[in-house]
């Protein structure tokens, strides 16, 4: 016999799994530190690539004067400035990533907690049905 309460609960669970459950499940497989650390590493790589593209564009933009001034300018201080700007840019982007993904992780954990509670309720319903059948 089909239990309506169980079907309703399973429908709710399946609906969640089809929708935002997919993303939250991926988040749920990581510990908080691992998940945020992974996203920060990805952000650092993206920011580095972007910074490289921007520097290359700036050099191409001003290529004539750059090539003519390269022997005159202080390369060490120029490189130091580039590194300082890189650290500020990547550091700022990483902090934004850290904050954003912390919030996302916390929200996903709340939804996952509800999901696991519903799974426990489903398990309890199954056990109750088995007991009823035995009687």
């Amino acid at each position, binding site marked *: *016999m*089909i239990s*309506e309460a*169980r*079907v*309703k*609960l*399973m*429908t*709710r*669970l*399946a*609906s969640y799994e*089809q929708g935002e459950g997919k993303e939250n499940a991926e988040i749920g497989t990581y510990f908080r530190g691992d998940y945020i650390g992974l996203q920060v590493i*990805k*952000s650092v790589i*993206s*920011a580095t*690539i*972007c910074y490289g*593209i*921007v520097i290359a*564009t700036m050099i*191409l*933009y*001003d*290529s*004539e004067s750059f090539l003519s001034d390269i022997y005159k300018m202080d390369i060490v201080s120029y490189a130091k400035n580039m590194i300082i700007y890189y650290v500020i840019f990547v550091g700022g*982007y990483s902090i934004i*990533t850290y904050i*954003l993904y912390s919030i996302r992780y916390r929200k996903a954990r709340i939804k996952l907690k509800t999901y696991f509670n519903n799974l426990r309720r489903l398990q309890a319903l199954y056990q109750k049905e088995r007991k009823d059948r035995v009687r």
Partner: protein
Amino acid sequence: MIKLLEIREYLRRFYSKYELYIVPAGKFIIALLVFLLINGNLGYMEKIAKVPLMFVLALACSFLPVSFILFFAAALILLHTYALSMEVAAVVGIVFVLIFLLYLRMSPKEVLITMLTPVAFALHIPYILPITIGLVGSPASVFSVGSGIVIYYTLNAVTQMSNAIDSLDSEKTASKFRFIIDGIIQNKTMMVMIVAFAATIIVVYFVHRMNIDHAWTVATIVGALTNALIVLVGDLMFVTRASLLGVLGGTVLAIGVVYVLKFFMFNLDYARTERVQFEDDEYYYYVKAVPKITLQETNKTVKKVSAKAPVSDKPKSGGIKAEKTAEKATEQTTERRVKKESSLEGAASAVKSHSSVVKKSAGTTAHKSTSASGSYDSLSANDALLGETRVVAEKSVDEGRVVKKAANPAASASQSASNAGAARSTSNSRIAGDLAGRRNQGQTRVRNDGYAGPNPSVGMTNGETIAERIRRERLKEAESIDADRLRRQNSD
């Protein structure tokens, strides 16, 4: 006003019923609009600037995720700019890569906003965007809108400088490169727009979440004023040559459009019909969950349709009375209930004639189609099979609206039951058997579809249908009227 409310309810029901077709159609329209605008404004490569090709691409995008529209749009833009000049394509490509790596990587869901921003600018209705996004989105949407503004002004710069780029010597790559980047970076209008839209989104977001009366209206007006103020101040500071009439006219139009959108979106839940599949040890389940459409009103008058005179409050100013008389409504309800019960009996007999034993093994598949309400809490399956229809007149005192709501949980259930082919399983015949017992028990049950009246099953005698009960009560009433008349005649 009532007509508008009815149109709104119709739209909600229409969306929840046909959501499966509306979403791909919407994606098709947006994709086609984006591709046609790109071809219209750029269109340097004639081989791909063909309308049938755009239709085919838009059709493909209607079945793919939304991010594919942006992908195809970016590809089209790069091809057109490559036809103009390789340096232009390189600069536009760099802009796309930066936006993707820095922003879209973190918020892939906001691709639609990034795409709609240049479209709104191209259609000369940009001021609608920040107010709408502030009302329905979050402050993080500032980055999506900013990306969209950068894309629009980049392409605008390319369009405006296309003649000059053509005239430049093809060997002078560096000068072309510098020319295009200057056109993008030194565009003060773009900076002013980014600042104005960002401020508007943030202001609208925080104002509409405040605990004040008419928060949405106040947020719309404050947002529109903020936007207009920043654009005009930026025009004074940087001489962006923004037209005063254009800004003010666009702002007023934006307020009007947002007001219309607010009417259709505020405090409404455009819930979708959900189709899920799951299995357990005994069955495979194919479930269609249809949301119940209810309108949240502060003051409700529930009109019970029965054999007795209906109980209803007097309408206050601005309200409209329900036009049906009690008897007419009773007859109509009786007809509906008789029809529903006959369909139930027909279904039950069909089930019995096509009975098949459901084997409790994993190898046998039993199709169970059921409708569960969006709330999952009420016994909607049984209600659906009972086929009860209730007409409820609701009235809002404040706004003087009357919305007629027909709570008909049977409609979708009967539809899905007919789709399943009259549910050929013994489980359904068992449910029909349960129902025959439930009718006589007069159980109270929790409903969350707004019906607040007593259980109509209470007071019914054994084996009696609802129609029979109504007939019995009307006979009793007629008898009492006759008895009163006789008594008066005798006393005279």
